Structures are given as C-alpha cells and as structure tokens.
C-alpha cells in the first residue's frame, strides 16, 4: 500500500476542509432546512465515509456510517431537522475531526472510540436512526466477503452465458470475460448464434450471442463467479462436476470481436485542469520573502540609475514589473475574511445555549480579502470579543424585554475595508464601574476626569483582565489586553465606543498585509527611520515658540488642541539635535494623537518589513527593519508602543503634579 501514501495526506487535508464546511452546512440547516442542504450534508458524510475506509481511517469511516444513516433518514423525510439533531450532528462532526486528528486507525483512534463521550454519541445516533442499538460496532460498513479460496482439485465447469441485449452499449466486453475465464484454466468456447436475427434486422449495437464455455480449473466456484460480477443482468448458469484432472486442452479460446469496432486511438492531449492548486502557506512566505528582496534590489537599482539616462527606461520597466509581481503575489495570500466568520457561528450557537441567551450573529462584508497571516492571528481575538459581547454585553431575555429590546440579542460583525467592527445591542460598557475598577487598580487617580474613549481604553490594560467585575456573569477566555496585544502585533489598532443601554462597538483597524507597508522616511541626525504611513496623520513644523513645558513633558498646540509629543532623540537616547528647524510627525494609535519630533522628513518609501534578529527582538519601540534603496538599514518605528509609553509616563507624572 506504499504507493498510496501521498494520497493519505491529501485525504486528511481534504477531509478536514470538508468537515469545516460541514459545520457551516449544519448551522445553515438549522435556520433553513431545504432538500439541497440536506443532500449536501449527506454527500459530505458519504465522501468521508468512503474515502476514510480506503485511506486507513476505518474507525472514522464506521462512525461516519452511523452519522450518515441519520441523514439518510432525514433525506427520506423520516427524521426531521430540529435543534436536537443539529446539536448531535455538530458533536458528531467534532468527533470526526478528533478521529481524523488521530491520523488513522491505531491505539489513538481506538482509545477515542471508547471514551464515554464517543459511546454516548453513538448511542444517540443509534437512537434517532432507530437502528438496533447493538450497532455492528467494528464491522466495516460493507466488505465484500471473500471466502477463503479453497483449492478444489480438478473440476470441470460448464458456464452458459448470455449477456442482456443492452450489454454492449453499456460497455460490457464479453470477449474480455471469456479471456478472463481462459486465465483460470483451460477452456473450450462455443458460441450460440441461435438468437442472431437476419442481417437486415440486425442491430449491431445489441448483443445477440450466447456462449457456452467449458472450463477445467482447480479454482473454486467463487473465482468463476468473480469474472461475472458485473454481468448480473445476463443469463448465467455455472454448473460443475468433479473430473479427472483434465489433460492439457489444446483448444484456445476463439472469440469473435463482439464489440463494434470503435475508434480505439486514444488521443494524447495535454492535460488542462481548471482546478485550483493547493500550496503550503510556507511556500507563499518564501515567495514573499524573495519578492521583498527583489523590491529592495529594484529600489537600489532605481537609485543607481537615476544618473544614467540610458538605463532609465529599463529601470522603469523593472519597477513596473516588480510592482505587478508584488500585487499578484499579495493577492495570492489574500483570503476572504468569511473564513473566520464560519467559526463565529458555532461559538455563538454554543454560547447561546450555555448562557441561556438568545443571540443572533449578523456578519457583513465577509468577502473582504485580507492577508492569510492576519486572518490566522485574528480569529482568536475576534472570537474573544464575540464571547465578551455575548457574555457581558447582551442581557438576559427578561432584562432586554424590560428595556424594550427584542428578546433576541444581536452581535454584528463587519469586515469593510480592513476595519473590523464587532457590535452588540447589549447593555453597553459601564463607565462608572470601569472608572472604579481603574482607580482600584491604580490606573487612574480619583481626581482624574478622563473622556469616555480614554476611559474605555482602560479595558485593554493588562490586569483589567476579563472585565468580569463589570457584570455578574463570569468572564471567560483571555482578556482584552490579549486582544490588543495581537492587534498591535498585526500593526493594527482597537477602538471602543459604547453607549449605556444601547450597546458596544469595538473596531479593529488592520493592515491588509503584513509583508509590505507604505512608510514615511524620517531623518534623525544622520540616521533614517521609517514611520508606518497608515498611522501618520499629518506633519507640521516645530516652532520652538509653540512648545509649552509642562512638568518636564512637552505639549504642542495644533489648531487649539494640545497634542503630547516625544522627541525621538530623547526616546532613543541620542545626543540632542542641534538643528534649528525641526518637524513633528503627528501619529495616531489607540485613538490617541502623539507628535514625534524628527530632524527632517525625507519622503514616502514602500517598505518591505524584515523582522529584527533574535537579539534585538525585545527592543521596545521598533516594529522591524527595512533596507533602503542605497542598501542601508532603517528601523521601523512601532507607533503604538511609543504612544502607550507616552501615555503611561503621563499617567505616572499626573499624581506627582
């Protein structure tokens, strides 16, 4: 069976995808059970069952068989789709994934089968299918019983065989069958042409002949029957008698070419496949990496060629091609965000039952495409926020009715552009409770009067954990600080808006891709840094007169708004700049504006992000590095970290003031 090994991994991957889809199908079925959906579920199970047994997943296949039985009944209208069936089906589907994860039959799968959960599941399936509860456990769904080939000494068999008239049309080849009999021993073949009509009446596509074959063989009857496995509509009679071992029979099978001579020439055509190609994500990363290098090399080339007029057109061409290649490669990595949405439906369903709250999940903009890496890392925080919404946001049915809201709560999820908003129509954040908690934790002084959005930012503070103190329901999973950590790592931002009694909206801003960003090149002395353009709001001149000293920290007055600013020289421990005319880049992170003072702004630069080496990874304030057109390295400034640091310093200083 060695030659099928590559197929096994293909099966596992395929089955996994099929089962992902099955979850969505089942959830769809719950809200709208049409025949097509039911068929689709059935087909899915059928495929897994059939393939499973062949690829060494017998346990999975046997389990699926029972599952499939249930849907066979649904298909026949003998079982109706209700919450109970969906519950059971979802559990069964999870069990199938678990069995798949065992990697085939073996101790793992056997142990899993014996767990109480699995046994209960089987019993429940047996109950709804009305199958004898003593399900033939361990028996393959169907196995062609092969009786032990007991060798019988020399027997003579007489086989009378007349295919049904349609046999030739249906692809039967009597000549091959008779030749196969010849392979079992020595044969004598006689054709019965009694039924052959006159030539004028002859339909050459019909079979008119019968054959009588005398076969001397030591093979058992089953071997002869096996020759005719597909000829069950034919007249077939096999009779045997024990004989003396027959002498070598010189008669060779004489068989006429019964099939109308069809064009046998099999034309060789190049295979064209419209299928998609499955590629390990790692390979895409590799391409992306190479492409990053190419972008850098191209930037260097452009810079070097700027003084060589004859090179210019070639360089422009290269630039155009690289841009095209980059866009194409990036698009390969894009997946619709819907992929994650699928997971939410299950979470909402399970949690609804658990919390006893009726909740509808509405998803919009699922077709928005976003980098696969972003999607992979995003799914956890999004699930967490949905849990939060359901747990803390959505009130119980009674409270909701009293507040004049429909008993069914809604959690909304949108994926427009790369803004992902999770919105619920629950009770909203309790500003007073957050405030009290923040003061208790020392995040806020009792006199401080932060604005609402500033206050809401506090729920992201580490230690604020699951905000379970804000409601009577206990929190679960990671805290909002984990959400922010992930979003930060993706170079995104989180914003919270909430209105008491009306609901909460958490918005994630995310870059479409992680690999390449647009950056603003800034100069600090003779060093060059990159600030991600996405977080840049504006650039202004730093007029010394506008500086206002306030307990050691500087504020900048921009259009009557005070904006805190950091001198990057100070932040990075450089010697103070001697330049008289400096600039401020106003950036925004976590809903906070912050000015970064630099010596000069050099321009825009498409930046291929390189992660920092292991030794530098812990350095705060940098998101990575990039290579500039002249081959020098520039560090990419991590705006979110700097902002948070500035805010923290401000909070520290406040009590002292």
């Amino acid at each position, binding site marked *: *069976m060695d*030659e*099928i090994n*590559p*197929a096994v991994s*293909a*099966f596992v991957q*395929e*089955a996994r995808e099929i089962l992902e889809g099955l979850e969505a199908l089942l959830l769809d079925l719950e809200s709208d059970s049409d025949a097509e959906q039911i068929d*689709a579920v*059935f*087909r899915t199970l*059928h*495929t897994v*069952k*059939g*393939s499973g*047994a*062949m*690829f060494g997943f017998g346990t999975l*296949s046997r389990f699926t068989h029972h599952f499939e039985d249930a849907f066979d009944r649904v298909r026949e209208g003998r079982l109706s789709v209700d919450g109970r069936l969906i519950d059971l089906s979802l559990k069964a589907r999870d069990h199938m994934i678990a069995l798949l994860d065992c990697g085939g039959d073996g101790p793992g799968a056997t142990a899993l089968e014996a767990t109480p959960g699995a046994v209960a599941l089987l019993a429940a399936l047996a109950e709804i299918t009305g199958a004898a509860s003593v399900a033939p456990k361990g028996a*393959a*769904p*169907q*196995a*062609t019983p092969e009786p032990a080939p007991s060798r019988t000494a020399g027997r003579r068999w007489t086989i009378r065989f007349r295919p049904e008239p*349609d046999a*030739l*049309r*249906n*692809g*039967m*080849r009597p000549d*091959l*069958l008779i030749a*196969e009999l010849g392979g079992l021993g020595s044969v004598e073949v006689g054709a019965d042409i009694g039924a052959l009509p006159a030539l004028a009446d002859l339909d050459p*596509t019909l079979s008119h002949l019968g054959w009588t074959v005398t076969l001397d063989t030591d093979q058992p009857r089953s071997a002869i029957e*096996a*020759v005719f*496995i*597909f000829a069950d*509509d034919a007249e077939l009679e096999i009779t045997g008698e024990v004989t003396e071992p027959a002498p070598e029979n010189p008669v060779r099978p004489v068989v006429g070419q019964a*099939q*109308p001579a*069809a*064009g046998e*020439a*099999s*034309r*060789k*055509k190049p*295979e064209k496949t*419209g*299928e998609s190609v499955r590629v390990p994500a790692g390979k895409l990363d590799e391409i992306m990496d190479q492409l990053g290098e190419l972008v850098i090399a191209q930037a260097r080339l452009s810079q070097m060629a700027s003084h060589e007029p004859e090179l210019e057109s070639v360089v422009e061409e290269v630039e155009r091609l690289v841009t095209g290649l980059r866009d194409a490669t990036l698009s390969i990595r894009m997946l619709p965000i819907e992929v994650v949405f699928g997971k939410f439906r299950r979470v909402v369903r399970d949690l609804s039952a658990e919390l006893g709250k009726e909740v509808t999940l509405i998803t919009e903009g699922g077709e928005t495409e976003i980098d696969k890496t972003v999607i992979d890392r995003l799914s956890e925080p999004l699930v967490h926020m949905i849990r939060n919404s359901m747990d803390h946001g959505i009130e119980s049915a009674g409270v909701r009715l009293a507040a004049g809201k429909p008993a069914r709560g809604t959690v909304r999820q949108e994926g427009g552009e790369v803004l992902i908003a999770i919105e619920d129509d629950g009770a909203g954040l309790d500003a007073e409770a957050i405030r009290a908690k923040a003061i208790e934790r020392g995040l806020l002084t009792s006199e401080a009067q932060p604005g609402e959005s500033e206050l809401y930012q506090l729920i992201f503070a580490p230690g604020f954990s699951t905000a379970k103190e804000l409601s009577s329901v206990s929190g679960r999973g990671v805290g909002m600080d984990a959400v922010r950590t992930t979003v930060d790592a993706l170079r995104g931002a989180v914003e919270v808006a909430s209105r008491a009694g009306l609901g909460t909206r958490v918005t994630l801003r995310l870059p479409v891709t992680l690999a390449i960003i647009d950056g603003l090149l800034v100069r600090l002395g003779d060093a060059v840094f990159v600030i991600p353009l996405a977080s840049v709001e504006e650039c202004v001149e730093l007029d010394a007169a506008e500086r206002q000293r306030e307990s050691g920290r500087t504020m900048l007055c921009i259009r009557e708004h005070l904006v805190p600013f950091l001198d990057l020289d100070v932040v990075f421990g450089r010697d103070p700049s001697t330049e008289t005319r400096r600039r401020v880049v106003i950036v925004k992170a976590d809903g906070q504006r912050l000015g970064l003072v630099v010596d000069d702004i050099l321009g825009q630069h498409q930046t291929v992000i390189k992660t920092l080496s292991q030794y530098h990874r812990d350095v705060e304030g940098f998101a990575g590095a990039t290579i500039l057109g002249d081959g020098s390295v520039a560090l990419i400034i991590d705006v979110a970290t700097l902002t948070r640091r500035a805010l923290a310093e401000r909070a520290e200083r406040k009590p002292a003031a």
Partner: protein
Amino acid sequence: MAKTVLIIDDSKAIRDMVTFTLEPHGYRCVGAGDGSEGLTRLRAENPALVITDLNMPVMNGIEFIRHARQDAAGAGIPIVMLTTETKPEMKAEGKSAGATGWINKPFDADMLLSVAKKLAG
C-alpha cells in the same frame, strides 16, 4: 498505447488513489471533479474505462451515465460506478442508466485492477 481511464469523483483523494493504483500498470489516468466535467473529459479523452462516483455536486454519477450513454463518445465504453452506496435500488438505477458495473468503496487495489483489466483490457 496506454489505455486511458477517466476517474470522476469530487474527492481528489479518491482520484489520486485510483491513479496511484492503475498508473503503475500502464493505464493513463485522467480525472474530473463532477459529472459535467466528466462529460467534457469523456469527449476529449476517449477513455477505455470510466470510473465514476455517485454522489457528486453539479451532476451526479447516474445523470452522468445517462448523458454519456446518449453521447456518441460514451456508447459502448465501460462505465463503473465507484461508491459507498450499497442499496440495491441505487444499483438498479445505475444499471438502467447504463452502468457497466459497480465497485463498492472501500475497494482494494487488486480488485480495482482486476476490474480495469476485465473492462478495459
């Protein structure tokens, strides 16, 4: 010249499996993901044997066989159903649509090979 076997199954794993089984024995295997793609392939490849799944999206195996038998390209070509379906009714339906034979999944390599030899030569 290598005989061509057309495998119609929505599972690539199954198509691969059949291919890995038959190719070492000199058959040339081509695949299709559903019945309608199967018909296109049937006309283009002139296979010596067609192996088709029953439950497939777009066009199922029975429909495929019906269409194939009405098509010049499909007349007289052995078409075997490869499926987990075991009900006699389904088998009869397949037969009346014009199927040559029936293989149940799971199948083993020897069985598949013997069927290919029996029907395609």
